[in-house]
């Protein structure tokens, strides 16, 4: 194994290095400097992100357990960007006195989940995939329970960890059945030895349930809202975009690479699940007053939209999933960013508290409006392009009924997104949130998101690039 081969794992290596640096740094940082450490860590991660962008070799490692390709590199870069935004947004929150001595923990846990996701994405074998998925989940539970003195945070943590262990149990049970019918857990082997036995299907569906848990698809989604609401805002954001995005990436890779043979089955499964996810997610989101919970259900519905890209099994499908994930990262992070800024400054999280926000904080309101429009798929912001192409990918293979259900659901979705806009712009409030100045990092985070929301849609070059790196069955 030469150094070149090793460089294939560049993302993982750099991340590990960053992890170690933070670990070591913690030891040598004095009590008083801990607060300043936030900045260092963010810059460090920015460097990690930048290094990720450099060109890298392709190939496989460890006898096929690890695969590195341009597609996976792209996916990792997208996740890097998202994580960077999350870190920037959590900057203020980390500055709180009760968090001050746990800044390192926060970074290390977050980086290790990201590492897990990378391994998951680059997996060539289900063992690698399993390790990745657990590495990505377990630290997250710790992060969800990060706010030690809050009941809700603890509740979020326990709900996440126990649900996830149930789901990984079922997922593994499914994998064991696939192993039983195929005899290997290498992706390539499973794809090469087609089996449509009932046991394979059974295994696949159990596996699907596990993935459904990660992507919070109905009916495996119930943990989502509670965890998002209880967890710190930045962790909820992380869960809703990075964790979900990574799950979507690996899910589509596995569907395309491992289970092309039973495409008929999984198309039907996805059809049913997509309809349920979008509909149930919307119906729940309709009623929510807590912004985090609201965004949680909205993100469930969005996960359903991702499935529309999966179902065709085409190159366009993968392109749009990656493209939409990128857009979704910017959009949802903008929304969460604002929720977190407001929660940070005023402690208010209810939609009713947002009444009349535009009169006092116009810029925040405008950003929120952009985010809401992007989530709802309104032009000219990026969400429109993303949704249009996702639906196109499903329509391409003739799933018009599914598209119809999805687009009708976007109307329901539009309704509740507009409720937020209405609260901010139209409703009048007796005691609105007063004007406040955001700090530099919050602004930076939002600025990146806004740029992303506005530019990603029009940037056809980006879409073309993603398309060149995508593949179909």
């Amino acid at each position, binding site marked *: 194994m030469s150094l070149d081969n090793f460089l294939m794992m560049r993302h993982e290596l750099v991340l590990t290095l960053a992890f170690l640096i933070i670990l070591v740094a913690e030891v040598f940082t004095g009590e008083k400097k801990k607060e300043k450490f936030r900045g260092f860590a963010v810059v460090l991660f920015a460097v990690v992100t930048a290094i990720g962008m450099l060109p890298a070799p392709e190939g496989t490692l460890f006898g096929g357990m690890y695969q590195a390709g341009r597609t996976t590199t792209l996916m990792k870069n997208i996740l890097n960007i998202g994580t960077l935004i999350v870190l920037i947004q959590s900057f203020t929150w980390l500055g709180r006195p009760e968090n001050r001595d746990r800044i390192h923990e926060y970074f290390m846990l977050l980086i290790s989940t990201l590492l897990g996701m990378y391994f998951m994405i680059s997996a060539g074998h289900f063992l690698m995939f399993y390790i990745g998925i657990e590495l990505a989940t377990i630290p997250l539970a710790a992060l969800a329970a990060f706010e030690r003195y809050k009941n809700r945070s603890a509740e979020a943590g*326990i709900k996440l960890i126990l649900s996830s262990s149930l789901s990984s149990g079922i997922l593994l049970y499914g994998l064991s059945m696939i192993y039983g019918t195929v005899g290997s857990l290498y992706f390539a082997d499973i794809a090469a030895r087609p089996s449509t036995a009932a046991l394979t299907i059974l295994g696949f569906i159990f596996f699907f349930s596990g993935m459904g848990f990660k992507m919070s698809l109905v009916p495996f989604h119930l943990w989502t809202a509670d965890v998002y609401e209880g967890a710190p805002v930045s962790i909820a954001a992380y869960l809703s975009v990075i964790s979900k995005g990574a799950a979507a990436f690996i899910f589509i890779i596995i569907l395309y690479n491992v289970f092309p043979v039973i495409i008929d089955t999984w198309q039907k499964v996805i059809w049913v699940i997509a309809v349920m996810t979008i509909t149930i997610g919307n119906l729940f989101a309709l009623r929510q007053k807590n912004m985090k919970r609201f965004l949680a259900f909205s993100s469930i519905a969005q996960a359903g939209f991702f499935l529309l890209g999966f179902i065709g099994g085409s190159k366009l499908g993968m392109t749009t999933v990656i493209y939409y994930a990128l857009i979704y990262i910017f959009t949802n992070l903008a929304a969460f960013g604002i929720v977190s800024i407001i929660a940070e400054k005023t402690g208010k999280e209810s939609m009713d508290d947002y009444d009349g926000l535009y009169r006092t904080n116009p810029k925040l309101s405008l950003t929120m409006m952009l985010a809401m429009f992007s989530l709802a798929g309104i032009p000219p912001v990026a969400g429109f392009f993303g949704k249009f192409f996702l639906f196109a990918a499903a329509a391409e293979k003739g799933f018009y009924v599914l598209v119809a259900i999805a687009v009708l659901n976007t109307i329901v979705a539009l309704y509740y997104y507009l409720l937020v806009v209405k609260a901010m712009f139209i409703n009048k409030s007796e005691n609105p949130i007063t004007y406040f100045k955001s700090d530099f990092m919050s602004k930076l985070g939002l600025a990146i998101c806004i740029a992303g929301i506005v530019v990603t849609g029009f940037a056809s070059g980006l879409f073309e690039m993603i398309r060149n790196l995508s593949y179909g069955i």
Partner: protein
Amino acid sequence: MNSGIPLEYYLIVATIMFFIGVYGFLTRRNLITILMSTELILNSVNINFLAFNRFLFPGKLDGHFFGLFVIAVAASEAAVAIAIIINIYRRFTSINVENVNELKY
């Protein structure tokens, strides 16, 4: 090596264990017991892997390794879970799962 016990028996044991685990997860009220139930599920998976490996694909050791890793991961999972449960106990002064329902609807 073949001890005469056929594969099906292992699988049946595994399945029963799996569903006992699920049943425990769904019915026990103590968080620790729930955690234990998930361990049961994972162990049923391990039996499956080992049995398949041993009976059907004895040439390679995929299943065995998988079992080992599952055990390791389960341990770390349990560690984190118990840490959170301790915190729950501090906050709620109870580890009854029914009390942990501040977040709903």
